């Protein structure tokens, strides 16, 4: 028996397959594109090709496109899934999960592997992957390039939290001839400050803070977040699959 978790986020769709001993046997991702339904169908095809019969049950979907998966048996929110997934990936049951997603950023307090409390940004996209994407676009770079470059910059801050205003701030920095790495630094700094202020609304205590979601592959974000929160923030190469893994676990 296999358990399948599908996390359809705003930018990418992640799939995880676990066996009954909670071993992760399959992980893959793809861009969500403009149609969650098409994405779900394509995931279904890939799974069948790999020999997993999605019609046999055990499929749990999560993420903002969770209702678009026709062969899903159950939907669970990404908050619950990230908590469960992170607990498995990081091998600890008490932790604080920060998930910087494409559209939402969540800070989740996990106790005994279960959600104890959480905060999530409202409509505003400050401190989310979307903010990074828009700024990277303005700087004619890929988001991951921007993150890497930010490490080499400094001394620039972007004060607007609103993505639209921040974009014009970036444009005027470009106009002033500010170095690209400094602008990149300012962008990442803005995200990190916003995310940290959200996380601080919860009682972090001496819990291990972990970063999941799309941005966790960028070491620099982890470093900057550690500095801002004054505690070591760790990540994992399977961190971006935490939601999908948690979804698979929710089916057990």
């Amino acid at each position, binding site marked *: 028996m296999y358990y399948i978790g599908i996390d359809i986020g705003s930018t990418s769709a992640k799939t995880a397959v676990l066996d009954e001993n909670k071993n992760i046997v399959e992980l893959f991702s793809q861009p969500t594109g403009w149609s969650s339904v098409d994405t779900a169908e394509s995931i279904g095809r890939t799974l069948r090709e790999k020999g997993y019969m999605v019609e046999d049950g055990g499929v749990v979907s999560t993420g903002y496109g969770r*209702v678009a998966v026709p062969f899903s048996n*159950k*939907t*669970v*929110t990404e908050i619950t899934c990230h908590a469960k997934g992170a607990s498995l990936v990081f091998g600890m049951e008490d932790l604080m999960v920060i998930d910087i997603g494409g559209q939402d950023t969540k800070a989740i307090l996990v106790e005994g592997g279960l959600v104890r409390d959480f905060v999530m940004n409202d409509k505003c996209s400050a401190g989310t992957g979307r903010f990074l994407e828009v700024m990277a676009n303005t700087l004619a770079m890929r988001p991951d390039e921007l993150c890497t470059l930010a490490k080499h910059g400094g001394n620039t801050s972007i004060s607007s939290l609103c993505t639209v205003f921040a974009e014009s701030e970036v444009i005027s920095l470009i106009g002033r001839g500010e170095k690209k790495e400094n602008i990149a630094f300012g962008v990442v700094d803005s995200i990190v400050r916003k995310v940290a202020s959200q996380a601080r609304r919860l009682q972090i205590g001496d819990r291990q803070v972990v970063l999941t979601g799309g941005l966790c592959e960028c070491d620099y974000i982890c470093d900057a977040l550690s500095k801002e929160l004054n505690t070591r923030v760790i990540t994992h190469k399977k961190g971006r699959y935490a939601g999908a893994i948690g979804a698979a676990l929710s089916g057990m």
Partner: protein
Amino acid sequence: MEEIKAKTKDINYYILFENYTHGLALEKLLKEEGLRARIAPTPRSIQGKLTCGMSLLVLEEDIEAVRECIDRHQAKYYSIVEMECQINPNRNVFC
């Protein structure tokens, strides 16, 4: 969390009235006869020139009995409109 599925009852019937006095009278009558009908705001797409905002919503499985009851009592109504169920609790569009 399982999503609540949209209603599976595909066809709804709306009984329209010239005024709510007729509407309330029929509602009372149907209730007395143990027939199901719910007061509903008339969907604008079928309201036409009628100014009465109330209608009676009847499910497909009940409509024959309701028609029969109306005929038997010569109850006043304007028309009965058949329409695909528009009710969707997952739409999340409010007013």
